[in-house]
């Protein structure tokens, strides 16, 4: 599903040039659950951003579903992204002004799904995440675990082929964290590919494979199964 080859990314400030990704290559197959680990500043978030087409690489190739996307412009990337990729963030990133229902509905609006269809799909996914009773609440009225479940509901409502999770349990206590990991595992078992950045060895154990990064390149791969 994903194949990157010799991917490079630099950050430049006025004087200093930092290498975030250094000729990184990796491959993720359809249906896999991959964890990316490494110390702070090793480039894992940069990698996730490029995989999620939020950012473009400075060099190298990125093939997504047999299409080279490394040099796609912003519009094309946005288009590909909204149909194929769901995001889960450490800080949830829900929109405060929208209710649970409206937050989850948002991706469907952007992909132009009809209103009646949207209600059906949002209700189905809220049901699945067991937060249906909270559908008219605003994010501030929910606990952290509940907010992350809304965020995951939002990520999967469009039935994306790929979910990118950036430290999804980072802001949660361990029992809420475990719940979120269970949810992700369920999604994976239903066929969604998941790539997750994490600091937690515990969380990483839910994945099939751990890719460890250091200074912008792969240092080790652990196959978990």
């Amino acid at each position, binding site marked *: 599903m994903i194949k990157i080859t010799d991917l490079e990314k630099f950050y430049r400030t006025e004087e200093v040039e930092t290498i975030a990704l250094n000729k990184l290559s990796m491959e993720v197959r359809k249906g896999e659950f991959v964890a990316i680990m490494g110390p702070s500043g090793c480039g894992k978030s940069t990698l996730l951003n490029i995989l999620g087409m939020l950012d473009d690489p400075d060099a190298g190739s990125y093939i997504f579903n047999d299409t080279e996307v490394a040099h796609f412009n912003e519009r094309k990337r*946005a288009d590909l992204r909204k149909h194929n990729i769901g995001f889960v963030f450490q800080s949830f990133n829900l929109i405060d002004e929208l209710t649970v229902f409206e937050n989850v509905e948002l991706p469907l609006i*952007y992909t132009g799904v009809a209103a009646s269809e949207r209600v059906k799909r949002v209700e189905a996914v809220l049901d699945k995440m067991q937060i249906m009773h909270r559908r008219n609440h605003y994010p501030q009225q929910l606990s952290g675990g509940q907010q992350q479940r809304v965020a995951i509901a939002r990520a999967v409502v469009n039935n994306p082929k790929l979910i990118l999770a950036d430290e999804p349990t980072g802001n949660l206590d361990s029992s809420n964290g475990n719940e979120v990991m269970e949810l992700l595992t369920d999604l994976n078992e239903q066929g969604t590919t998941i790539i997750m950045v994490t600091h937690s060895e515990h969380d990483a154990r839910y994945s099939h494979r751990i890719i460890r990064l250091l200074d912008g390149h792969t240092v080790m791969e652990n196959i978990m199964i």
Partner: protein
Amino acid sequence: MFKNYLKTAFRSLKRNKGFTAINILGLALGLTACLLIVLYVVNELSFDRYNTKADRIYRVNEDLKLGNNSVQYAVCMPPLAQTLKTDFPEVENAVRLKNAYSIHVKKGSENILEYRVAFADPSLFDVFTLPMINGNASTALKEPNSIVITETTALKYFNSTNVVGKSLVINDQGGFKVTGVIKDVPKTSHFNFDFFISMSSFPDSKSDKWLRSDYNTYVLFRKGADPKKLEAQFPAFLRKYSAGEMQSDMKMSIDDFEKGGSYFRMNLIPLTDIHLHSNISGELGANSSAQYIYIFSAIALFILLIACVNFMNLSTARSANRAREVGVRKVLGSSRGNLVIQFLAESNMITLVSTIIALFATYALLPAFNQLAGKEISIGLGTFAWLLPASLLIILIVGFMAGSYPALFLSGFQPVNVLKGKLSAGFKGGNLRNFLVVFQFSISIFLIIGTLVIYNQLNYIQSKNLGYNRNQVLVIKNAYELNTHSQTFKQEVKQLPGVSDATLSGYLPTGQARNTSIFYKEAGTTDQKNAIFPQTWSIDEDYIKTLGMKMIAGREFSTSMATDSSALIINETAARFLGMSNPVGKLLYQSVDGNHEHVKAYQIVGVVKDFHFNSLHENIAPVIMRFNYDNGNVSVRVNSSNLPALVNQIKSKWSSLTSAHFEYSFMDQDFEATYRSEQRIGQIFIVFTSLAILIACLGLFGLAAYAAEQRTKEIGIRKVLGASVSVIVGLLTKDFLKLILVAIVISTPLAWYFMHKWLQDFAYRVNIHWYTVAIAAVTAMLIAFITISFQSIKAALTNPVKSLKNE
């Protein structure tokens, strides 16, 4: 999708109540001010357009230069209207109006003084659109002693509008027949009369003299006729008709007349230009000036710009708070276009709400504004016909103007950056915002300086030594009612305790009676170089001291000098025009009854210090005073502590001599009336300037709040490291004050230049002092400082633990 935008916009606005309130309030204030000014300007521009033939109606003006004087008249020769109609086929019609100033109209036993009276030719209703309710418009003003009155007047005198055929007693003479009742003359007319008396009732109107100017003459052109072509034929036309008269009365040919540097010309002014572009001798009412229309339009635009700038500034400043939302939306698949639309929807929503508030506020404030501006503007159905589409347009334009920058700026965020918190400093768009603050305050300082200069000038007019003393002078307006008893009345009033002096003369510095005539320095010649064309006033022996004027040479008139019937007192300007450094004792000559064969010699016995009798827009003109009987007014200098009692005493003297109504005023009030329009303009200016500054401060207040919020962490760290409150307040305030300084540097020269130009319009004016500018600068600084420091102090007093924990 659009519903979602509105929903988000609405909730976001609701969540940020302070921000929303500042935006809506600022914008609503700005729009209200703007709307009021627009109504004012539209009203001013609509003058005389109620006439369906307005585009074909022109007034004939006359330019006269005689010797050193030149005068422009709104009035022309008595036979002009008829002659134009007969001589030129392109002239469809012509009409004369003559101001009758005042008449007494009897109602029951009471004689009511009416000021809005004119004589008019029968063609009045063919030229002007003055719809007749009762009566026949084509014949109403034909017969002598016919009178057409307005609806209101009919109701006032007869309680009915169905009064054609009834009669009115005017100036105690019966036999005036009401031949028509018209709708009231619209307020937006350059003349406003309640009574139109047939011109044939006024014998003078049949005069065939071409060297006189006293009839306001209007010409209606045929469709498609070119007024310029007619104007081009005026010189030959005038020559044809006036040459004979000039030869017989002045003993000279027109060529000689013109060789002396004098001239006598006519020109046309479009009817719709009169109100804003004409302010000359013989106008039928007080006109306005186009200059004020420009000034007010500029202020309206400034206020709107300031309000828009507020919006842009606050929105971009708030961008940090919105950045995350933008990021999330982008990650979820929103395109940049979607976001632009979203933010524009938001700003248009704010504008919509503001406009609605502004419409209501305008409606509510209109009576107060009318009072301030001395107008009678009303919002009717006709107003809505243009106001609603205009409001819609304003909503869109302001909405886009105010929302476009935040929309483009916010939608350009890179989701990676904002979600990762790299934009935490958030206070982006700093340069543009700085520019906008400078822009806003430049306008504000400009307006402050403008206000100060206008205020100073008005103050100067108030306190200027006018060369006479207008305080404590009671003017009895209709002294002519006393007929032969006027001398007796004056003498009796003089005896009253509390009266220090009294004079009998209609020619007052604050009055309307004016008269000009020609004097020559030499008896035998009619050479223009020898001529002077001064105001010629008839006064009595008590005039100079009653009005507190000063003699700088010679003496006042005296009843004990038998020769004073041929004596003159001239003002300093007249002496200068005559080129006499020592005029007392010199002779001046005047032809008797316009006949140059007979001349009368006058001797100058005194020179009075110059006094102002026109508006201070104009230079003092030459005045020559004759010792002559004129019973237009009695002016009484009083020094009583019990004024009402004294007025009653004078009134009872009056009543013992005449049954006429006692009309009086105080000279200082009459003087105020001369400058009322200026004072009004000044007040309007001050009100709107204050508004502009208030709106600018509102914006600055919001901006300072966000600046402080954005720097919470920095402030926390500085405090942990030992910074004092004052250091932090200084830190936050300094940045803004720098911008205000830049604004001062930019606006001061501009304000100086424009206000200097404005003052040029006054012949007597103040200078713009350096301290005027300094006051404006310090005021702006102070206002800004107070606005900002409120927020800065709040930020500086916050416990650092709290602000750092937030990170």
